């Protein structure tokens, strides 16, 4: 029962914040709703028993990516996006209004639903086990797999990240002014 409560809370947080992120006028607000969505996804990982992935999700996205996004939006003029977006909607009719968006959403919803009904008998679903498995920690398994079966992918991605780090440092480095006399 508590797993269900956790799942429902996380799912509501994820979906609600995702919708709010899309309809928010201010791009800074969108960033904050994105934060809520990411935390909700971490909650979904917890309900699936993937503790390490959940915490990594929180660590990487909340601690790093969202703050980086906030910085980027703020330094490139956070509030100005609001007026521009409204102007764009008003000037170009092809961008649509709330009625056209509403009709599009309804149509796609009905379409997807009918598709599901059509393929229901063809595709066999995955058997969902009713018995809850006892929770086991995933940290040791992930660590072992990373350094045995998936060691190549692990090393390659670490080299890639190192390259990105060095590249960022080189781009951000202050250029030396050449002295005319030498």
């Amino acid at each position, binding site marked *: *029962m*508590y797993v269900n409560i956790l799942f429902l809370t996380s799912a509501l947080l994820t979906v609600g914040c995702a919708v709010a992120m899309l309809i928010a006028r*201010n791009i*800074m*607000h969108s960033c*904050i709703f994105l*934060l809520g969505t990411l935390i909700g996804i971490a909650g979904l990982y917890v309900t699936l028993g993937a*503790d*390490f992935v959940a*915490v*990594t999700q*929180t*660590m990487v996205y*909340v*601690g*790093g990516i*969202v*703050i980086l996004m*906030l*910085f980027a939006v*703020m330094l490139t003029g*956070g*509030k100005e996006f609001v007026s521009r977006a409204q102007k764009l909607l008003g000037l170009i009719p092809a961008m649509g209004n709330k009625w056209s968006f509403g009709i599009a959403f309804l149509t796609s919803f009905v379409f997807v639903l009918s598709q599901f009904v059509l393929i229901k008998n063809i595709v066999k679903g995955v058997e969902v086990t009713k018995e809850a498995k006892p929770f086991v*920690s*995933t*940290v040791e398994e992930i660590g072992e797999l990373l350094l045995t079966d998936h060691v190549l992918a692990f090393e390659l991605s670490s080299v890639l990240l190192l390259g990105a780090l060095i590249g960022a440092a080189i781009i951000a480095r202050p250029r030396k002014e050449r002295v005319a006399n030498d």
Partner: protein
Amino acid sequence: MNTTIAEYFLSFDVFRSFVSRISLWLGTDVTPFIVFMIFLLGALVITLVLATVGGFGTYAERKISADIQARIGPNRVGPYGLFQLIADGIKMVSKEDIAPKTADLFLFYLAPFLAIFGVFSTFAVIPFGSGITLTDLNVGVFYLVAISSLVGVGVFLGGYASNSKWSMLGGMRGASQIISYEIPVTLSILAMVLLSGGMSFGQIVGSQGAFPHQWFLFHNPFSFIAFFVLFTGALAETNRAPFDLPEAESELVSGYHTEYTGMRFGLFALAEYVEVFVVSGVAVSLFLGGYNVPGEEFGHSLAGQGAQATVFFLKTCALYYVVIWIRWTFPRLRVDQLMVICWKYLTPIAIFNLVGCAVWLVVFDGKSMFELFFHH
């Protein structure tokens, strides 16, 4: 032998029989419900206690600073000014709640709650005793580092949403500082994870002992240095002097919470003081033996739990004193010095410590310095 509060209660026969009798009476198994209620109650008590500790932090700060500066400090409200905390609280609550006209109101109101949420979420894994832990997560330390980065978002948003130059500068400094210092802190924590072989607080504290020679602080030379790296980084992450650039009074008025009044300011202040307690507690658990008391049997009894919590609180408060002591002793750093210390000194030292700890574990078969010197 580390358990959560609920498991600790259920390990007593009296309590188990009590639960089974209720189950019989109601006709269903109420154990999950009881466990949930114990958890809820424990969470409530721990939150209240730590919020009070955070409140007393402001009193301690003023009293110790007064002591260092040869003043008397607050002494009017109650004996030795002890009720100053209540007077401050009443003042905070009864103040007018002002928001700047040009502020981004949604973010302005949200920011203090993000900060306080980030700090209070860490209570879930703090080990006060072998039976007094809300939950002993397998990824406990990692969870703590991850969730406390929400404070950085709160600080940054508080600075941005106020639409004031002081706040903006403070918020930007705060966010960049918190992100940067997370790296040496996490690397130092990782070295301790190596030594104990697990990321749960239960395992980390459990692999240390009650006496100083069993602490991870004196396990090997690298862990000794790692403690100071962690402590310095923790000072910077909680925006404490000499790293209090985000709220530097003499240049930025009050930094990221300049525009906040009343309880919203109070939440930011509370978050800061409680976070200092939390990071002191983490340093104690990782390096200074945590809640360990001599005697395995004694530790499990109720008196032992009390002793463990007392030991934990005493050590943490000692570190808290050092944090305040440092604030009133050292001058504030400049922004460039701050970044130089983090990236050019602390991070390389932390990486060196991590590698050093790993090599030590391989070469000396996981023995501590004390075991090498005295037990052949």
